[in-house]
């Protein structure tokens, strides 16, 4: 059992296109489904609201770590930090890293999320509650809508 999650995905698009989709706050917001207040800046907090129907009230916040053009974009955050009464700043955030590599045919994107060992058990329960709330069904709806967008 690992303390991290790693995903590798090959994208049929140039590295610069993928970099833009990750680091331009409006483009990121489109596929990640969050409406961000402003651009990503290393060392600064990025804030916004989740745009999934039914979850519009959920605040989204991350601290941008590294932006090494067309190579590495990273931020720390508190996944499923959805309770307005809780001060999540006391908890250790997880680190999300997007690494890009040029390959034949486009871009290899490697995503890693690490730091799960510090997540308290109540946070894990929250994740399941959100998931059972129809998150999956909503994502499917939105997925087909966006698949029409070039």
């Amino acid at each position: 059992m690992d303390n991290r999650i790693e995903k590798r995905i090959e994208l049929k698009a140039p590295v610069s296109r993928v970099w833009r989709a990750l680091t331009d706050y409006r483009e990121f917001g489109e596929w990640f489904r969050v409406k961000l207040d402003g651009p990503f800046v290393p060392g600064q907090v990025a804030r916004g609201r989740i745009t999934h129907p039914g979850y519009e009230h959920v605040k989204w916040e991350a601290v941008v770590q590294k932006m090494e053009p067309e190579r590495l974009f990273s931020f720390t955050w508190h996944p499923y930090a959805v309770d307005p009464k809780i001060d999540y700043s006391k908890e250790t955030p997880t680190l999300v890293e997007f690494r890009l590599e040029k390959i034949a045919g486009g871009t290899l994107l490697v995503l890693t999320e690490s730091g799960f060992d510090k997540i308290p058990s109540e946070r894990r329960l929250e994740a399941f509650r959100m998931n059972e709330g129809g998150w999956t069904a909503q994502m499917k709806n939105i997925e087909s809508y966006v698949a029409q967008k070039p």
Partner: protein
Amino acid sequence: MFAALGDETRLSLVAKLSDGQSYSISQLTEGSKLTRQAITKHLRVLESVGMVHSSRAGRESLFEFSPQPIEGIKQYLDLVSERWDRALSRLKSFVEG
């Protein structure tokens, strides 16, 4: 939790205990190069993260495996993993057009 498992001795203790039976410290020390004291120390670490619990049977402590903490984390990681699969497939559609 992860730190508790990140040790060969503790991993082998968990492996032994995962057959569901109760074991005494003597039984767990049997066949090991480590001292009873060292094995006890490792068991206490596993106990502190809830992976193992102990009960007293006469003068001996008996140790048993508790699967719940591991299951909780595994399911959480599966959930997070699934969420990333969906987000990345949206990214794929977004950049590939």
